[in-house]
């Protein structure tokens, strides 16, 4: 449950082992993440029944979001009360359902940005949230490339709300409520590398059925929730975000800028002060 990211681990390991061993360490770290629990969603098998949304509500005790007639639970987007839902994509010739929830990134931007470690990536896979730490700054809502974290705006002291990958079920050996409820097998759960192998074999055996890409395998550095689809991913709201982890540039910049200013700043100030001509400064205190 430690908040230490893979790259921090690499840095420490790299220091300990020396730079020659870094490639091996990187492999070891990669295997570590593939042991995490994840989910595989296959859009070609989804019938849009919303059983997953319902299972999520029952386990997490979220409120239904009724349609105007009051007859149906009909959320239109993720919200503080809806942590997963099935959306419909309708193109001219094709249509598809797509399940949305937290992707549980391997290197999550929300975790990198959160000032107080209220969001953490656990070694088991889930990205979890601790309201006792959260100050409600909502930075995570902007850093997340999938627009997942939502805020309970109507509460006097609101919370961030999102899918937890049913972290509180995993400990007992159960899977995420949504994956266990799915009646068509469109959503399955398991170890991430098992799911990747399954996805690879589906792509291989039914290459005409799928877009040849497992979304989340390498996207944004990898996610714990993986997708297969028969329509291009960007059409169902899963944009091409590259394979570099979202926090990479930000964390690299911080590693350079902050120590440089902290060390270089005072030195530069001392240098400026010693070479500047002093216009009679000592006599006139501007304060």
């Amino acid at each position, binding site marked *: 449950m430690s*908040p230490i*990211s893979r790259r921090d681990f690499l840095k420490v390991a790299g220091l300990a082992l020396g730079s020659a061993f870094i490639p091996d360490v990187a492999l070891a770290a990669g295997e570590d993440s593939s042991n995490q629990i994840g989910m595989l969603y296959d859009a070609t098998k989804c019938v849009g029944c919303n059983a997953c949304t319902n299972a999520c509500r029952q386990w997490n005790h979220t409120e239904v979001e009724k349609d105007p007639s009051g007859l149906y639970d009909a959320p239109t*987007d*993720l*919200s*503080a009360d809806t942590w997963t839902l099935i959306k419909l994509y309708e193109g001219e010739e094709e249509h598809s359902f797509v399940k949305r929830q937290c992707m549980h990134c391997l290197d999550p*931007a929300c975790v*990198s*940005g*959160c*000032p*107080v*470690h209220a969001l953490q990536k656990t070694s088991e896979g889930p990205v979890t949230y601790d309201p006792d*730490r*959260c*100050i*409600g*700054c*909502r*930075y995570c*809502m*902007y*850093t997340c*490339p999938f627009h997942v974290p*939502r*805020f309970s*705006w*109507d*509460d*006097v*002291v*609101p919370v961030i709300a999102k899918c937890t990958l049913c972290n509180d079920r995993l400990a007992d050996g159960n899977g995420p409520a949504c994956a266990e409820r799915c009646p068509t097998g469109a959503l399955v759960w398991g170890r991430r590398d098992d799911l990747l192998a399954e996805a690879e074999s589906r792509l291989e055996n039914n290459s005409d059925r799928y877009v040849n890409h497992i979304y989340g395998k390498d996207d944004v550095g990898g996610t714990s929730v993986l997708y297969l689809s028969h329509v291009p991913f960007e059409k169902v709201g899963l944009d091409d*975000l590259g394979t570099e982890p*979202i*926090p990479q*540039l*930000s*964390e690299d*910049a*911080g590693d350079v*800028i*902050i120590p440089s*200013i*902290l060390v270089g*700043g*005072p030195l530069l*100030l001392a240098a*400026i*002060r010693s070479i*500047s*001509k*002093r*216009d*009679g*400064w000592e*006599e*006139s*205190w*501007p*304060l």
Partner: protein
Amino acid sequence: MAALDKTKKPMPVAFYPLLALTLIAIGLSIYRLAVGLGPTTNMSDYSPWGIWITVDLFLIPVAGAAFTLSLISYFFGREHYHKAVRPAVLAGFLGYVIVGVLLFLDVGRWPQFYNIFVPGFINVHSFLEEISLCVALYTIILLIEVAPIFLEKWNIKTPIRWIKRSIYVIAGAGIVLSALHQSSLGSMFLIMSHRLHPLWWTPALPVLFFLQAGYAGLGTTAIVITLIWKAKKMPVDRVLLRRIGQAMAINLLLYLAVKAGDWLGAGEIPLLLRPDAFGWLAWFEIFIGIFVPLAILLSKLISHSAGPFWAGVFALIGVFINRLVITWIGLALPSPHPYTPHWIEIMITIGMIAGGFLVYGMVVRHFRLFPDRQEAYPTN
């Protein structure tokens, strides 16, 4: 206030409206804390930040006045700037206090806002955390730097001597903290390349924000001292204003070079030429905020008594547009309820800024913002 009675001057006309606005804002702030963000703001899951964040990100470079003037006078040792230090540091201090108040109102889980200072919770990778710590520490530094204005009036000499003796450490720490958080405000958006409009997102954001703090701070100083001199019917020091204008011009030129370099390097010129809102906004921002001030500062107008003042005004408008896009327009997602500020958000913002003007005006009226060279402090 005892000082008020002694002067026996009639209150300026602006006093009562400013006081009223401030009191309304305080009342609305208590209401916001009591009922939450939902009923008092128009923020939503699609625009989780509103006008308060925009104003914070505008006021911080404006309050950079204290940063730039401290650097120039304490470290570059330019005596001629010294008389602008007090007005600039006071503007900076009040700016940061307003930012602190607005941030406190903005964080949803305000009863535990102090978590940001709990060592075990601190995330060293988070630029937002670093900004929070720097802003808090820097506000304390500014409080120490403005303290002599009040201490000398009340004839409390010992702490002034301490401050005077350690001014390099105090001002130096303030400059380092400023360099950190002014640039980090830009770094905060490095992690949003997927969200911020490409004309504004660039890996050079920390550099751009740092340069903006430079010229916005100098511009604010030019505006503030011009207004004070006009109000107090003091002679305008055109040499000082020209020098501030020159320093501003350097920062503006550097900013323009980095910005243009980024647009060219990233191949974003077609976006600039596209006749959509963002293309127009980018041009408008550069024209009003960079070209107009540069036209004033690089021409004879820099020596006109109102030249640096207007250069400052236009530069600040440019920074405001910049921060408006970066915190709001350029981050917006397609939304069922596009964000426009709730009237309570607007009234709290206006009222808190009015409070800043009110306090500044009272200090100008009753304390000495331009200490004379010899009599500023007793030597012992």
